[in-house]
Each structure stands twice: as C-alpha cells, then as structure tokens.
C-alpha cells in the first residue's frame, strides 16, 4: 500500500516539474498576454497543485515520517486553496486587461460576439 502511494506521489511530483517547465517556456515564447496567462495557469495548477497532492500521498505512504498526517493534510488543503484561487486570479487578470484595453485584442475566433450578433 505504501509503495503504491509512494510511486503515485512521485509521479505526480514529476508531472508538476514538467508542467512548471512548460509553463515557463510558454511564458517566454507565447505571442500575447492572454495566451501567456494560459501558460502561467498551467504553471500554477499543473506545477503547484498536482505536486502538492503528490506530496500528500507521499507523506501518507511514509510510515517512518513523524506528523505524517499533519503534513499530508496541510499539503492537501494548500493544494485545494491554490486550485480554487489560481483560476479566479487568472480570470481577474484577463478581465482587467480586457476592460482597461491595455492589451491589443486580435481574436481569431470570437464565439461571444457571434452569439451576441445572432440575438
């Protein structure tokens, strides 16, 4: 049981590292603000939430660790808070940038405008 938890947690932490790397590359290479925001959110959800859950599983599986339930609980709660907060923060940033017209807006597809145009 503890071995399964160990491997599951380790895989999740590795996934987190990969997501962080991709998020960083995306932040550097993507063309405009909105797409970069997507890369940043990949970095927070994939690179912080997933490894935090992984740490929780690892701690649950480690029998020798003192206070392992406290560590697992704290990581799990922190992961949930980040999971809730990151999309809300990204939404707020995108909304503010769009509202203040700070970023050039050149959509390839605008479903919202199509829907509004059909009304």
């Amino acid at each position, binding site marked *: 049981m503890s071995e399964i938890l160990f491997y599951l947690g380790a895989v999740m932490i590795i996934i987190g590292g990969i997501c962080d790397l991709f998020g960083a590359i995306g932040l550097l290479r993507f063309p405009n603000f909105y797409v970069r925001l997507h890369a940043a959110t990949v970095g927070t959800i994939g690179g912080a939430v997933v490894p935090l859950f992984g740490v929780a599983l690892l701690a649950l599986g480690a029998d020798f660790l003192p206070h392992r339930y406290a560590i697992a609980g704290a990581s799990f709660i922190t992961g949930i*808070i980040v999971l809730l907060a990151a*999309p*809300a923060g990204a*939404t*707020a940033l995108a*909304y503010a940038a769009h509202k203040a017209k700070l970023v050039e807006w050149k959509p390839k597809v605008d479903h919202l405008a199509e829907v509004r145009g059909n009304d």
Partner: protein
Amino acid sequence: MKRWVTLILLLAAVITLAYVFQVPQPEDVRPLGEFYLENSYFGDYSAKSPEVITSILWDYRGIDTLFETAVFFLAIIGSLTVFRLTREQEKEVKTEPTQMEPLPLPIRTVTKVIVAMILAVSASIALHGHLTPGGGFQGGSALAVAPLLIIAAYSKYALENNGLDKTRALILRSIGLLGIALVALVPLLSGSYIMQNQPIFPAEINGQLIGGSLIYYNFFEFLAVGAGFTAVFLLLAIPEEKFKKILGVRR
C-alpha cells in the same frame, strides 16, 4: 556562450563558498539554552509550552515584545493621522458610486470560499501559538488578508455595508490592546511582577494545555493586528477621485 561561462562560474563560486564557510553544528545544548528550556518547558513554574520560543518571547522578553508591538501600533496611528478626515468627508468617502460593474461571478464566489478558509486558518495559527510555530502577530497578519481580498474582489463599500468600517476596526484594535495591557498588569494584583506568567495563570485547564498567559496574549495580539491592518487597508482603498474631490485638486 559567455553568459553560460559566467553562470557556471557564479554557481561554482556559491557552492565553494557554502562548502568552505560551513556553519559549525552545535554538539549539545549550551548552558543558556539549557536554562531557558528548564524554566520555560520542564520546570514547575513554567508555561509547559512546547513552543519554547513563544514562552521566551512573552515571559522572559515580555517588555521587549510589548514595545515591538507598540512600534507597529504607532505606525498604524501614523497612517490614521495622515488620512484624517472631517465628518462630512468621512460620509463622502463612504458613499458608494452609482455605476460600478461587479467582477465576473467566478472571482466573487471563489473569494467567498477563500475568505472563510483564511479566517479558519488565521484563527488556528493564532490560537495554536503556544503549541506550534506562529502566534498572535502571524495569525493577525493572515487574518488581515481576508478583508483585503474582499476589497479587491468586491469593493471597500461591501465591507462597510456589512458593518466593518474604519471605526469598528479601530474599536476592535483597541479591545485587543486593552486585553494585552490587562493580561500584562493582572500579576501585579497578587504581588507578582509585571507580565509574569506562572503561577498566576494556569498552564492547563481541564487537561488542555493553554500555556498560562500565552494564549491570552496570542488571542489579543491576533485581534489587534488583524483589526489594525484592516483599518489601514480600508483607508488605502479610498478611490483617488474622492481624495481629489476632498482636497480640491483641479484636473
């Protein structure tokens, strides 16, 4: 290529320096540390708090901590003085502008959930201050994030309409300060020293370890710091246009 060489050289230098100047690890507890441990954790006249640093901060260096707290409150009083307003101006600052578009729904909903979580976490940091790292100041600082988030996601008017305005925050802060002063002065009544912890305050109540006066100090500091920060955040959230109007700045 040149940048890579610089980077590698820097990294090598840092690692070499860290290796050469290793901090010597102490082999056993020094006499002073032993004295503090004996008298703050193990002894009969001790708070029996496993978080020895908190007991030392409030017991042995209590006056020091009290004046550190006083510095923070002087800073808050200073910012309140900078933002002083007459009664009409206060009313002007509190009136809500008519056309205000709310933020998208996901942001507001998530803020509600997270504010509730922050309240729980900050209370836990403050009230476990005698058991785990943390304490009143840290818990209060965490508490102050909750009104800050509400100001960001809704507005300062949302806080004020729900009853938490600057005056209430200041009253809460004063209650916290008064509590700290009272807990510090109570030992004088029974002929002990100021800010003395044991044996005036019980270390345990019903088998629950509360660390003597530590939990009271932590709670009141939590209240005072959280409310003080909230008052300053409410002042900082006053829109610029209102201040321009009050000060009579021409555009």
